[in-house]
Each structure stands twice: as structure tokens, then as C-alpha cells.
């Protein structure tokens, strides 16, 4: 069974979200102790986006259903980061849209079936 094309889109979206979050980490850090929470939220979002992207990669050691759950936690982290720091509201809205797209892709039965079938033992 060939890898569904939608999974490649999911991988690209996850990597894009992770890279945007990485840039946000750089912007959030201003050398002060107070900026640590902003940096922490951005790091969390970045890690979750990359984890979701990893779930869509070939030979990912993750069950198909887990990817949707990780993407949902990622959207929750983006929401909390938005509420905590409204400095880059539009960037956070874009990240949220990317996260929702990840959930939609991960929830597709085709993706769940392929991921479970091609999981390394």
C-alpha cells in the first residue's frame, strides 16, 4: 500500500508549524526572567508540531489514532499561548489553523489505516 498523499501534506504542515513556533521562541526571549513562560509555551507548541509531523513520516513508531490526539493537544497549547501572549495574534491564529488541519488529516481513516499497517514491530 502506497503512502497516502494527504500524509505528505500533514508532514509539511507539521514542519511549517514547528518552524514558525521556533521563530516565535526567538522573538519571545528578551533576556528577562518574565519571558520564560512565553518561551516555554512556544517551545511546547514547537515540540508538539514536530511530534505531529513525525507521526506522518514514513515508518513512524506511533499508532494512527495517537497523531490526532497529539495534534489536538497542540491546538490546545496554541490556544493557551494565544491567551497568555497576544503579541503575535495573527501568527497564533495561523498556527491554530495549521493545528486544526493536522487534526483533520490525522482523523482520516485512510491515514489511521496506513500508519497502523506500516508501524515498525
Amino acid at each position, binding site marked *: 500500500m502506497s503512502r497516502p498523499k494527504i500524509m505528505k501534506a500533514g508532514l509539511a504542515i507539521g514542519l511549517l508549524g514547528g518552524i514558525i513556533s521556533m521563530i516565535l521562541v526567538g522573538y519571545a526571549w528578551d533576556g528577562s526572567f518574565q519571558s520564560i*513562560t512565553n518561551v516555554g*509555551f512556544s517551545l511546547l507548541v514547537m515540540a508538539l508540531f514536530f511530534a505531529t509531523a513525525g507521526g506522518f513520516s514514513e515508518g513512524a513508531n506511533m499508532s494512527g*489514532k495517537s497523531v*490526532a*490526539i497529539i*495534534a*489536538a*493537544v497542540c*491546538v*490546545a*497549547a496554541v*490556544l*493557551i499561548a494565544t*491567551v*497568555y501572549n497576544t503579541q503575535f495574534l495573527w501568527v497564533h491564529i495561523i498556527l491554530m489553523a495549521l493545528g486544526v488541519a493536522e*487534526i*483533520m488529516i*490525522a*482523523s482520516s*481513516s485512510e491515514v*489511521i489505516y496506513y500508519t497502523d499497517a506500516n508501524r515498525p514491530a
Partner: protein
Amino acid sequence: MNGEKRSAAGFGAIGVAAAFIFSIAWVVSATADPSWVLGSSYVSDLGVSDVSLTKDIFNYGCILTGALIMIYGAGKAYAYKNAECASGILLVFAGFMLILIGLIHEGEPYHRAISILFFIFIAFAIISAGYSDGKAGRMLNAAAAAFAVSAALMALFGISVQMGESIAVIGALAWIVCDGMKLILSRKIEASNKKTRKVEA
């Protein structure tokens, strides 16, 4: 459909209506009282507001929504089995606590205990339904449950108790809409799957 005994579409519509009624009551009452600030005030502060419109809309909204959530939970428990049935029973308790929140206002004895119980019941209802959805492959619903629980926990420990409470209520409302839609659409999806299987055969 996995775990479903009979149709609960009507109860799903009641759940969706409950979420919309509470959302409208919350927005209207918060708008009428300029001293209430999202993330700085508790949601229950609206029930003891100096503005009578805010107080009345919020308290009656809680009572009405609580009753609807109880009916919705009872319908869910009646239509499903296993974890989904447990979720319905927990929703009945959560609805009852919401009615009590509308009757026993902030500052009165037992209000805090009732509020905490409401959040505990709704959290376990979401987790148990999310588990059942994940097992049955309804990943959008499972994702909605994961979103609601993780957003509330992150806001509670990362920002403040007030913000955590508000995010928890928003997450719970979003989850009830998703879960209600699942109940409404479950029979239609099953019927369409049966039709497809017949055509394929």
C-alpha cells in the same frame, strides 16, 4: 456503531442547544457587567453581580442549561453502553451541579465545593467519552476531548485559576457541541455505511 444501543439524535440536539444557551447567557451577562473581566474574575462572579440583568441571566442560564445537560446525559446513558454510558451518567451529575451553581451563589456555603464537583464530573465525562471515541475510531470527537482537557489543565497551571476556569467552561461547551453532533449524526452515518456496503455487495 460501536457501543450504541439505540438512536439518541434528539438528545444530541438538546446537548447542542444547552451549549448554545449557556454561551449566549454567559456572553450577554458578561457584556452587561463591565467589572467582569475574562481571566481575572471567576465565572461564578456573574451570579453575584451588582447588575441585576447579569445576575438574573447568569443564574437562570445555569439552571436551564443544567437541566438540559441532565436530559442530554440521561439520553446518552440510555442510548450507549460501556464508557459512553458512564460519560452520560457523569453528565447527569454535572448538570445537577450546574443547577445548584445557579441556586447557591458565590460566597454562600458549599458553593465552592459544588463548583469543584461540577468541573470534576464534566472532566471525567469528557475523558470517558474521549476514551470510547478513540476506541471506536471517532478521532475528531476524541481530539475534541483531548483539546478540552489539555487546554483547561494548561490554563489552570500555566496562567491562573480564573483563566483555567473560563477555558475549562469554553472547552466543555465546545466538547458538548461536538458530542451532541456525534449523537445527531451517528444513525445517519451508520445508515449511509450500510447503504454503501449493500451497493458494494
